[in-house]
């Protein structure tokens, strides 16, 4: 069946309808401003809930049945348990056992531990996944095996989709390291602590039904609560919600790769020479090895100069905690926690504050934290001559990563992508990105081991680092160098069939991923 497509403002051919629902093609940065009201869940009554506040159900199956689990429903989960998640797969084990079909799984992200759901995509229990697709799941989708079309959103885009009513969650199943019988829940305590559970905020506020699943039932009140019990229908107690060592790392480590360290060092030098790094700086850096190394180099500069950062937005790690504890960062605002030091800190330190992406990233709200940040360090699988970025597919066309907060973070004051020029033989700087995830006008600086390219739109930065001794090149120089070393790559061959849509932060469709032609 041919789908009607149009060319959107980014020059990409996108459909007007996805999974039977009309969608709006991307119009440009800041161009789409919807009107009307936000979506709202049904009105509940206290009369329908136990007066003693005890909402504990016998089992997850019991709770799902009581929530009216039925064909075609949308089930949401959060990803704070990361690769140690034992809850998400269980939902679909139960659904398959009951014989429910055509569910939509709406996770805030998926991990390799979720690969077993491929079985339920095969047998029709799940129609599609609207969320990040990694590894084998991405491969499955790219080969056109998923029945419905995947929809990829940023973390903030997911909140936007929920609030705007694009995605109506029927049942949110929210794992919680600690919860009380009323449904108040938090990310700390118990054996499966993940620090914060802020990704669930939009889910519990907007879902028709909310189930909290815990392996650490505590007496009322579970405090400080991140999920408020007044939004919760049922509480389920299981033996284990997660595998602790796969939820957080004992310690996160900076990269040992000399090539990545070189990129990290160059990035720190750029931040210093450009004046972006200053007393009172606000910053975000991820938990990847290169980002951590940048944080370490930046911290050394702060130490040398006697400066401090105003706040850091986490993904927190021990490196950020060290800055907080040694007085070189005033606050950590935290959307997720990556290691044991950070869990300790968020429990002990009043200046280490849970800060859900609900507040930080949602584009359809009254301002975002991201646009208040000076330094934003991000990655990409590909960047093209127009500084456009791709984070969801590899150059071979396979869907292999989620968007995460990447698109939301592009709104920061200085968006810097420290990336290698090529990975093995695969060029990272290319003519045109395979899949467009972020428009080049929002991407300011590309830092590779073989030179730094500044977006010509940022003449201010170009002026600041002129004559600084930094290896400045054009993006074209970088692309040519990558091709000189690797050779000019062929483009992957796609069928017409759309297997995934990539949403921009405002809910419009910025690009699609098509099925790979099989040999």
């Amino acid at each position, binding site marked *: 069946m041919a789908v009607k497509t149009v060319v959107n403002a980014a020059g990409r051919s996108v459909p007007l309808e996805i999974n039977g629902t009309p969608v709006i093609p991307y119009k440009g940065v800041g161009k789409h401003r919807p009107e009307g009201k936000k979506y709202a869940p049904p009105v509940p009554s206290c009369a329908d809930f136990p007066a003693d506040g005890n909402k504990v159900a016998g089992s997850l199956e019991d709770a799902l049945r009581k929530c009216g689990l039925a064909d075609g429903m949308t089930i949401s989960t959060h990803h704070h348990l990361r690769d140690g998640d034992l809850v998400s797969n269980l939902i679909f084990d139960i659904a398959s056992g009951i014989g429910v079909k055509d569910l939509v799984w709406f996770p805030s992200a998926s991990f390799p531990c979720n690969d077993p759901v491929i079985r339920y995509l095969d047998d029709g229990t799940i129609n599609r996944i609207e969320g990040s697709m990694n590894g084998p799941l991405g491969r499955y989708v790219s080969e056109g095996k998923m029945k419905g079309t995947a929809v990829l959103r940023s973390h903030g885009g997911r909140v936007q989709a929920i609030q705007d009513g694009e995605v109506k969650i029927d049942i949110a199943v929210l794992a919680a390291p600690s919860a009380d019988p009323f449904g108040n829940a938090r990310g700390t305590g118990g054996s499966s602590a993940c620090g914060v559970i802020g990704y669930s905020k939009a889910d519990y506020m907007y879902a028709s039904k909310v189930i909290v699943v815990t392996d650490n039932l505590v007496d009322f009140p579970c405090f400080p609560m991140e999920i408020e019990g007044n939004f919760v229908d049922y509480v389920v107690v299981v033996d284990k919600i997660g595998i602790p060592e796969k939820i957080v790392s004992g310690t996160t480590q900076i990269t040992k790769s000399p*090539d990545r360290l070189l990129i990290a060092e160059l990035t720190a030098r750029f931040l210093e020479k450009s004046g972006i790094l200053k007393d009172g700086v606000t910053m975000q850096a991820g938990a990847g090895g290169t980002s951590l190394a940048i944080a370490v180099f930046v911290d050394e500069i702060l130490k040398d100069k006697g400066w401090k950062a105003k706040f850091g937005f986490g993904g927190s790690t021990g490196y950020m905690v060290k800055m907080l504890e040694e007085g070189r960062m005033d606050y950590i605002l935290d959307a997720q926690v990556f290691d044991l030091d950070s869990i300790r800190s968020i429990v002990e330190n009043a200046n280490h504050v849970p800060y859900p992406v609900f507040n930080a990233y949602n584009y359809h709200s009254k301002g975002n934290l991201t646009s208040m940040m000076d330094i934003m360090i991000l990655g990409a699988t590909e960047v093209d001559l127009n500084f456009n970025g791709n984070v969801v597919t590899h*150059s*071979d066309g396979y869907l292999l990563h989620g968007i995460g907060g990447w698109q939301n973070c592009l709104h920061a004051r200085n968006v810097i992508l420290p990336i290698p020029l090529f990975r093995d*033989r*695969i060029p990272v700087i290319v003519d045109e990105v395979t899949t467009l995830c972020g428009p080049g006008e929002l991407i300011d600086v590309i830092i590779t081991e*073989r030179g730094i390219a500044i977006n010509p739109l940022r003449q201010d930065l170009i002026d600041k680092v002129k004559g600084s001794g930094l290896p400045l090149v054009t993006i074209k120089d970088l692309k040519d160098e990558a091709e000189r*070393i*690797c050779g000019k790559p*062929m483009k992957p061959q796609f069928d017409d069939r759309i297997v995934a849509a990539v949403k921009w932060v405002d809910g419009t469709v910025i690009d699609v991923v098509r099925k790979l032609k099989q040999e």
Partner: protein
Amino acid sequence: MDKTVAVAGNSGPKVRSDCEIALEIRHNGGITIDLNSKVKALYGESIKSQCIDILHYFDINNAHLTINDSGALSFVIAARLEAVVNKLTATKKEFLPDLITENMVTTDRERFRFSRLYLPGNSPALMINAGLHSADGIILDFEDSVAPSKKDESRFLVRNALRQINFYGAERMVRINQGSRGLEDLEYVIPHYVNLILIPKCEDKDSVQRVENRIKEIQVKNGLENEVLLMPVIESALGIENVTEIARSSSSVAGIAIGLEDFTSDLGVPRTSEGRESFYARSRVVIAAKAARIQPIDSVYSDVGDINGLRQSVLSSKAMGFEGMGCIHPRQIAVIRQGFAPDSSEIEKSKEIIKAFEDAGANGLGVVALGSKMIDAPVVMRAQRTLELASRLGLIPDYRINNGTKKEN
């Protein structure tokens, strides 16, 4: 023909930027290729056509290739394929990838050799970005870091690396094998703008001269005149005994290095961190080198994880008179470079000395004093050298020794 199947290169879950090629020469059926590659979607066709071109170049028209590729660059694929062809045929032809212009540069005896990064000669993944880490030199190694069964194939890889990899200004060095294999190694590197040859386990001047003579022969044969420098490596008691004659054995010798793992093993003692067992030998190398006006170069520091230990070791090397050290990991480079460079107090002191010297000259004084200390000519000269070094390293603005014999940078 006795053998019809051969394999070269590396594959496996941990291998990157390399490939393993198995070639079976057949009598008919044309060329067939089984390609298993992680970059197949992007480079599958170009890998196949490259291999067919190379086989045709070697007049092989019927063959089956099995390629397990983990993202090898084209010069690596070419080297692996040429290696298997050489195992199966007696070809005299060489398949040379283009020589990039950045590598058509000769060297200068006087340049710094503080840090030289060793690169195993059969591991392309470590070579590709090696030049980015600002080592003064890179050493493509045929000797200890290459397994005996891989020595032949490493020659094609190192040759192609010299022609194709941009090392971003690092001096391009090769450590050849010992003895006759080492002399054969030269055939694969001398025509390709190598800057310096390290001669391992050097024990007398004859072994230097044999290398030098072979280099001259190869150069004459190829019509080349670029200077190729030599750096003998002393790794035995006998080598230490003969270090003076080795240092003076040829005008091409730019430096002398000491290799302590083999040296201590020759003495039959363990190598300790304080290094008392090798102190005399290291001093001998420094004195022989300084007497011959060449650079003494210290052994590598083998604990890659111990950066503080390395820092101490560099400072003690520098204090003994060494002018450089080998590196076995890129993270050692900055520490070594920093260690051998003059520090800020040395620079300040030298500036004061020079100023006092100049003031004394201007005032017509014969005797120069700084504070309560008399300054004589060697002290001034050492201060001048320190400032010149600092200037060449970019630590201070241009400084040149004004006696007319010293060059600009």
